[in-house]
């Protein structure tokens, strides 16, 4: 028993460090990808080709002065970034990186991740409220409306997957997917996949849905008043959120850890490639599109994505009952 607990803790520590390293280098990856899309080099100064840039950034943010506004609601102000990061990191626990490799392979994994990503939105709202600044407040309000709307679209978009796999357990979904005719659900669930991709961008507050931050209007939105390491916590939360969303996309639509052939000694390779493909998609969209307007985002969510996702659920039901049974 004790050994089991110790092993689990060890596993958590290992996964945590690996994820944090990936988050650090996801920022580097983003800056390089976007840099090259924008006829520039990206970070080049720290280390060869700027490879040590994320570490330098981390050190810099860690040693910055911890500034907070005098009129801020302090307990909430301190709690908000922690809520964001913890909610994002907790979701990692139920993600199977390869067969049998998940910290906790619970039955309701998918539901758990949806719940946790809602909680992360709560942190953003609290940050906007606690800062006692109008820019932060507007950012927080936008975040609450946006996250609630897109949570629904996202939830509905993976209902089709749940119906096809007959399970909410992440590993079961991958296994069911491997036995399906196409090997991945992205093809039969193409509508759901599309809605998921859009909702995924909105859920993680990325361009073109970066309403809560939108630097040209709200300065920095909900994190306007945050400095130093508290700002870094938000930042980490956002990137962990991106990795989680990319993982959910990989597991639900792209076949999880399965690949065209088995790779010995390194079973995570397919999973990682697919996750990084989706993360590249995040960056690609960011480098291409302007930002939507707040009311247009709401209209897109409620009038396009939710009906599409509902239609997909009905379609999947019909297909499952009459065609695929």
């Amino acid at each position, binding site marked *: 028993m004790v050994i089991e607990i110790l092993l689990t803790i060890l596993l958590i520590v290992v996964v945590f460090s690996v994820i944090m390293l990936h988050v650090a280098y996801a920022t580097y990856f983003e800056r390089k990808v976007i840099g090259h899309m*924008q006829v520039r080099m990206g970070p080049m100064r720290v280390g060869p080709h700027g490879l040590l840039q994320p570490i330098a950034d981390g050190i810099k943010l860690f040693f910055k002065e911890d500034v907070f506004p005098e009129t801020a609601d302090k307990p909430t102000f301190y709690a908000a970034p922690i809520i964001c990061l913890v909610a994002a990191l907790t979701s990692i626990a139920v993600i199977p990186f390869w067969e049998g490799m998940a910290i906790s392979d619970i039955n309701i994994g998918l539901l758990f991740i949806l719940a946790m990503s809602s909680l992360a939105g709560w942190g953003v709202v609290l940050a906007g409220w606690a800062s006692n600044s109008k820019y932060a407040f507007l950012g927080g309000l936008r975040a609450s409306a946006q996250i609630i709307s897109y949570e629904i679209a996202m939830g509905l978009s993976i209902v089709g997957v749940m119906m096809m796999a007959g399970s909410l357990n992440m590993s079961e979904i991958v296994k069911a997917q491997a036995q399906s005719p196409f090997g991945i659900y992205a093809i039969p669930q193409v509508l759901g996949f599309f809605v998921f991709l859009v909702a995924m961008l909105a859920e993680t507050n990325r361009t*073109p849905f970066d309403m809560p931050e939108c630097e040209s209007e709200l300065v920095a939105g909900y994190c306007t008043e945050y400095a130093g390491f508290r700002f870094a916590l938000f930042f980490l939360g956002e990137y962990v959120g991106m990795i989680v969303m990319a993982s959910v996309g990989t597991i639900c639509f792209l076949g999880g850890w399965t690949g065209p052939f088995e790779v010995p000694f390194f079973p995570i390779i397919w999973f990682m490639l697919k996750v990084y493909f989706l993360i590249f998609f995040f960056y690609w969209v960011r480098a291409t599109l302007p930002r939507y307007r*707040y009311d247009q985002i709401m209209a897109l969510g409620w009038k396009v994505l939710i009906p599409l996702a509902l239609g997909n659920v009905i379609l999947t039901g019909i297909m499952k009952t009459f065609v695929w049974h």
Partner: protein
Amino acid sequence: MTTNPATTIRHSLEPIGDESFILNLGPQHPGTHGVLRIIVKMDGEYVLDADPVLGYGHRMQEKIAENMTYSQMLPYMARMDYLAALSYNQAWVCAVEKLCEYEVPDRAEYIRIITVELNRISSHLLWYGAFLLDLGAFTPFLQAFADREKILDLLESVTGSRLTYCYYRFGGVFQDITDSFLCNVMDYIKYLRERLPSYHDLVSGNVIFQHRTSGIGAITCSDAAEYGVTGPILRGTGISYDVRRNEPYSIYQRFHFEVPTGETGGCQARYTVRMQEIEQSLNIIEQAVTTIPDGPIKSKVPKIIKAPEGEVAMAVETPRGELVVYIVSRGGKTPYRVKFRVPSFSNLSIFQKLARGKLLQDVLGILGSLDLVIPEIDR
């Protein structure tokens, strides 16, 4: 005009109380592109009123001009609109030349046209980038800057500076251009013509861009006349007025170019007008480079100018619109009174009207589409 949701909401809430609040935008805000401050009264996300506050960069340029000789004032002109310094150079030298009746040799006029139109393109490219940045797209900004950089290099090779040029002289230009410069300009024209379609691919056809700009901040022709807006914003409303065409100065009547106009007067019309103006400027430069004559670049002008008594008004078309320089001289080395009628100031004047009842994001988009240069407004 659609009904204003902000006011309808307010009417229904009136018995409960006024829930509007004041948002102070600037003078240091990423959306205002300089030291412009806007006091915005908001109801939720809707802007009830937007009141621009000017003067943070006031340098008394007009008063300074009264204490300077005519040539000493020349470098100050570039500081007013740092993005179109050559247009301001041109306005000043043309005004003084008109006042003192100096001749300008043909070659100098051609050189002025080539350089000032290059400057216009660089200003429009910067606007393109900054406007898209206001709408949340970062890539067009950097791509436009990379292309603009090439113009700065070209102009640097003839004027010696990169932004605040002081290249024109009374009766000519400071120094002659070389054949290799003309070759480079022709290469650049070819290069930019190949690049412009990619601008349209990236932005003009983008659905989000169209949703964010079409019909937003529309100005009617009568409003445009009432508020005295000029330049691409005026032309966006469908009024074909360009000083280069309507009151030709320098040698613009020798070139064929069109004055692009829009129809709706909204942000998208302004965008289209400016993008077409880049192409028209390329046409003008191409004609000028192929027909430029040999000859002197400067006529005989005394070193210290003593202008005759009298007054003169000179209008030129800067990238932002009509700039009028008005000089009153009572003889002597310095002007008695100088007045600048700057385009950004009159273009800003309509902003308050456009902003009322819009969403905050649209308001900042409209502000970006006006292409304001704050030192020009504050002077």
